[in-house]
């Protein structure tokens, strides 16, 4: 087993760190702590420019995030204690963070790597819509629609709406059955699409430790797959989450967690949000021993991350990480638009271009229709995202800003109306697993438009 000493140290801190009330942690550690560092490090985020062009600001966000995390720590809800690491400890741990990892098997294996700002190497694409509900009968076809796309490097599973007709109930035998079903169906889709060794992240259908870990072993999630879990916003954990981490480490698996700060929540506006996203991703490595660190910062009412108030701090945060560490960062593009809408495709442009030039290592999704509408996700938007990754890697931040602003203007008005689009079965031919002409034409139209803005798809 790797990292036993580090894991025991984290457990020790969760058992013996300073004890405090959770509300006090929210107020004194998170909100007040962020306000303090935003002022101290002079973090003033542009209200309009989406892609950060100011390297000094990105570096200050990094400094602020490290200072904030060292004072704030991560709250363990099980023990009511704060897991804290000093600034020196954080910096020392980050020195040894992995900057590359190979996932998957055989000819389907791919390498993920840390990227720099304006890096000309293409980030990876994790295609599919994690956590989005899907009926059992459409699970394999929709997953094939992603895995068959050459642009998709790795994948992840959606969530079954029910298991053999039963509601899935957390911490119950039904959750364990559904976890296994999710893995079985994903592996079947990979075999049928001819990419059996492709890595995928899981287990999405399960939220409890027992549900997730049951299908993470022989016959289930493989050591070469990515093993995900979310921490609780903001900066919180529990033994249930640490149990998942412990099991992944016992299996020598790739630790692939995420943290999704809520905009307008404890971190306040964009200034605090930029620091909070950065700190949360640092915490994923320092406290949760992540191989790769992920985020999908969330709007409190629209539940997406494609509005300016989220794109702006995300760009800054990814640049802060890329310029000051070797962490492999990833973003889930959570869009309001659904399949069969141009909105979704414009959101793909904004999010993918922003993340690529800002130094992210991998994009997940997109997750259309905020990831909440059953069956509203398809492989075609992932194909487009993959093409955008390649095209965006040729851009500098100036040109990227120009393109992203054009795309944003196309969907800004839709952020509150939320055109959720259509179910997979209504925009794909289920026999051939190919997009309908209408959906394909829409994609071609937007792609041509984006090419006219300066994205090179050659």
């Amino acid at each position: 087993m790797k990292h036993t000493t580090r894991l025991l140290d984290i457990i020790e801190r969760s058992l013996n760190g300073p004890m405090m009330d959770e509300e006090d942690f929210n107020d004194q550690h998170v909100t007040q702590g962020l306000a303090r560092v935003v002022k101290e490090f002079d973090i003033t985020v542009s209200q309009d420019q989406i892609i950060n062009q100011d390297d000094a600001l990105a570096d200050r966000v990094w400094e602020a995030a490290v200072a904030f995390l060292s004072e704030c720590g991560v709250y363990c809800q099980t023990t009511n204690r704060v897991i804290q690491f000093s600034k020196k400890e954080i910096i020392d741990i980050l020195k040894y963070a992995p900057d590359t990892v190979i996932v998957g098997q055989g000819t389907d294996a791919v390498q993920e790597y840390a990227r720099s700002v304006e890096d000309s190497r293409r980030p990876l694409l994790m295609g599919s819509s994690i956590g989005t509900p899907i009926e059992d009968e459409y699970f394999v076809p929709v997953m094939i629609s992603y895995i068959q796309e050459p642009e998709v490097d790795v994948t992840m599973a959606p969530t079954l709406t029910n298991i053999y007709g039963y509601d899935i109930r957390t911490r119950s035998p039904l959750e364990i059955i559904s976890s296994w079903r999710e893995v079985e169906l994903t592996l079947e889709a990979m075999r049928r699409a001819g990419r059996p060794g492709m890595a995928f992240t899981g287990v999405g259908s399960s939220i409890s430790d027992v549900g997730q870990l049951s299908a993470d072993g022989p016959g289930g999630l493989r050591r070469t797959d990515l093993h995900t879990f979310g921490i609780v916003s903001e900066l919180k954990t529990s033994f249930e989450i640490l149990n998942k981490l412990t099991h992944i480490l016992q299996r020598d698996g790739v630790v692939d967690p995420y943290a999704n700060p809520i905009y307008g929540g404890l971190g306040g506006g964009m200034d605090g949000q930029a620091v909070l996203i950065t700190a949360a991703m640092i915490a994923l490595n320092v406290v949760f021993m992540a191989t790769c660190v992920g985020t999908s910062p969330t709007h409190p009412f629209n539940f997406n991350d494609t509005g300016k108030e989220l794109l702006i701090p995300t760009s800054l945060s990814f640049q802060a990480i890329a310029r000051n560490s070797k962490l492999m960062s990833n973003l889930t593009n959570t869009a309001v638009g659904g399949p069969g809408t141009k909105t979704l495709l414009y959101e793909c442009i904004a999010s993918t271009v922003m993340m690529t030039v800002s130094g992210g290592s991998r994009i997940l999704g997109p997750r259309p229709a905020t990831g909440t509408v059953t069956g509203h996700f398809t492989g075609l938007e992932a194909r487009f995202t993959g093409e955008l990754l390649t095209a965006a890697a040729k851009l500098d931040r100036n040109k990227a800003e120009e393109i992203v602003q054009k795309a944003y203007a196309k969907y800004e008005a839709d952020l509150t109306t939320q055109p959720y689009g259509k179910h997979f079965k209504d925009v794909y031919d289920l026999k051939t697993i190919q997009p309908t002409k209408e959906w394909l034409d829409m994609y071609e139209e937007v792609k041509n438009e984006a090419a006219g803005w300066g994205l090179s798809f050659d």
Partner: protein
Amino acid sequence: MPSQYDTLEKAILSGDQESGVSEAVKLLEGGQDPVLLFTECIEPLLEDVGEKFSRLEIFLPEMVNASKVVKAVHETAKPYLKNEEDDVSKGKIIIATVSGDLHDIGKNIVKAMLEVNGYDIQDLGVDVPTQTIVKQAKEFDADIIALSALMLPSLPFVKDVVEFMEGNQKVKVIVGGGPVSQEWADEAGTDGYGNNAIDAVALVKDILGA
């Protein structure tokens, strides 16, 4: 708003509990009608705070702090109320994230929005067992049970609460959260669904008529 409330308004908006309470005492000792204090000053002010948050012109910490000042002022004003029915709470609500789900920010946003709109809230936290929700709703004499469920496998626990409360005409069960839709909420037998915190306030106003 009448100018005698300027200092109190400032205290509420800046989250200054000490100043808010001392100003309330000053006003009440000076003969201020406690009911008017709420209807003329605090209620419109909090409504404005809620609206500003719904436009994200202010953020959760400011809204929570304003709400904390008002709670303290409310406690201070209680001895000055001539009749118990003058108490200003518009209704009692139990709020909780259901069993198996640890998400709390969405619930906390809804809670803060309801508080600034004048409802009396008891927050049971996250990962709350069905039995606890039901028991606490009875003890608190709640008008509404507001449930948050962010993950698909936690939804059956909402149905359990609905089933437990069947036959209880007084308490309404409402639900919100990522995987929930109006259709699901209807099927589950809940009394209402809110897509977000703004919807939740409108829904509660609709149910309680206040």
